[in-house]
């Protein structure tokens, strides 16, 4: 009887899914292998980078131990060898901070300008020109900073010391202005400006348009809308963009090597000659390096590598979290 058959049917368990073989040809297998090998190759290269840096840095680190991070001198060839990157960590950080202070406001302003204020005909070439700024080699920035900016900023440096010198940062003990972290910071700031601006532009353009319209429909001015909707929305994205810029600033080598006169004391006097960054140190001392010096320089490079890796990874996590999390509006 058909009804009973139907019930039996319903009670019977579902069949097991079949195993389907993909049926790849040999050509497919070879190709897949090659692609996987390429990807693995990337891992291998990164691993090699870490491996060789550690191997080469080891002799120096064995000699210096933990004092590598706390010593303020650089004399790996001396007896006893006495060297450490403490001053350089400070210098690197200082330059990066000045760079961000220069770049961040201009980047946010230009992102808002392109997204909200400028007509499309003006915005597109502006974006193209900003990206062109990113293409300029670091060497050119350094040369421009050294020969053009430095003389022009003498007056400004002097004015800052004279008028704002009571703040320890702007004080200088001798009236010499040049080869300073201030100038290096401004040049590096210009270098990271394109990347911070373009990421900020991306982030701010994803603010939900419906909420922006609601603000305008309530009678808000354009700035009111930006301040109450777009900026709060993009807050963490801007932080991520700043960190990306920071990561780039930390690795900046040549411009700093050209501009700064290296010394190894920590000084808060950003307008005075001196300071140094890890990368710049390596570039400057590399040429005549003997064995011990070389090991020490590699150790410094390893430290730089680790720091930059951490900052960049954090930055990407923050930026990704902003753009994905706020997709639902």
């Amino acid at each position, binding site marked *: 009887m058909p009804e009973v058959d139907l019930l039996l049917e319903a009670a019977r368990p579902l069949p097991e899914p079949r195993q389907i073989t993909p049926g790849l040809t040999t050509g497919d297998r070879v190709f897949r292998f090659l692609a996987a090998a390429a990807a693995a190759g990337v891992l291998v290269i990164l691993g090699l980078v870490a491996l060789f840096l550690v191997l080469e840095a080891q002799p120096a680190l064995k000699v210096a131990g933990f004092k590598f991070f706390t010593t303020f001198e650089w004399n790996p060839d001396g007896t006893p060898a006495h060297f450490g990157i403490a001053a350089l960590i400070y210098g690197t950080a200082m330059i990066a901070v000045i760079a961000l202070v220069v770049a961040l406001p201009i980047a946010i302003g230009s992102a808002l300008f392109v997204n909200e204020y400028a*007509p*499309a005909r003006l915005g597109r070439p502006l974006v193209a020109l900003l990206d062109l700024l990113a293409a300029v080699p670091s060497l050119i920035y350094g040369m421009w900073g050294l020969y053009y900016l430095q003389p022009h900023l003498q007056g400004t440096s002097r004015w800052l010391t004279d008028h704002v010198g009571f703040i320890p940062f702007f004080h200088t003990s001798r009236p010499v202005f040049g080869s300073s972290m201030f100038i290096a910071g401004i040049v590096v700031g210009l270098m990271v400006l394109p990347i911070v601006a373009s990421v900020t532009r991306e982030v701010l353009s994803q603010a*939900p348009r*419906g*909420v922006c*319209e*609601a*603000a*305008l*429909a*309530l*009678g*808000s*001015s354009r700035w*009111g*809308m930006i301040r*109450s*909707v777009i900026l*709060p*929305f993009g807050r963490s994205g801007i932080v991520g963009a700043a960190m990306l810029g920071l990561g780039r600033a930390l690795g900046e080598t040549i411009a700093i090597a050209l501009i700064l006169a290296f010394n190894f004391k920590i000084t808060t006097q950003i307008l005075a000659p001196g300071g140094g960054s890890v990368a710049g140190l390596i570039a400057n001392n590399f040429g005549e390096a003997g064995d011990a010096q070389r090991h020490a320089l590699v150790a410094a490079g390893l430290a730089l590598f680790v720091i930059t890796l951490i900052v960049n990874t954090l930055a990407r996590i923050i930026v990704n979290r902003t753009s994905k999390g706020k997709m639902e*509006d």
Partner: protein
Amino acid sequence: MTDIPAADVRIETAVLPDEPSPFTSGGGTMRAEGLTAWFGKHCIVAGVDMDMPAGSVTSIIGPSGCGKSTFIRTLNRMHELVPTAAMAGQVLLDGVDIYAPGSRPALMRLRIGMVFQKPNPFPTMSIGENVISGLKLAGIPCRDKAEMTERCLTRAGLWSEVKDRLGAPAGALSGGQQQRLCIARSLAVSPRVLLMDEPCSALDPSSTMRIEETIRDIRHQVTIVIVTHNMQQAARVSDYTAFFLADKGDPGRIVEFGPTGELFNAPNDPRTEDYIHGRFG
């Protein structure tokens, strides 16, 4: 015609009343004359003449693509925010053209509010902050924020549900609640007219019912113009109805306009009759 304070008529001045006084002026009169709107070279609506009397609810119905949304966005100068937009004709609020040269759109939008199809409370603000956000954005001082918040949320039919959690983020509310919050937010700046662009189409039936109740409650204090897809809704809430239609390739035009009862039961135009009886849509 209700007594309109002289300060409210001159739209272009910066002089706003000290304390917002909602619900006492009885709504403003709106009138469109020869309204035509373009996006670039494409004309969306043409030659619309329409009266929206004070204190009434006017609904705009028509098939999709006939320019209803574009038309309503010309009523509070949101249309021109799109770069290629252009318009012709006049829109008069209490007899004054809102597009007069020298008038400030932002100021005028305090008088003509808007509720959108997709509820859009400010996500970074709490419920209470959302309600008075319009006042803050416009720089209008408010002496008693708590009382204003309660009044607006009550008018929007949301007070009893949120009175214990005004500090909670606005995103935590359901869709219907968010839309009522948006209505409360719009009411806080004391508009004379409230435009609603398909406010219930993203909501479930019970939220829709609550919002229709709200419309009935506030109609005498605020003139309402509502675009709706739903003919039964138009029949339920509105005093006047306008039927828009766009023949293929042509801009949308107003086909018929009249008291709701007459339009639905005894339409003059055969096209209106066809639409109402569902012969096209």
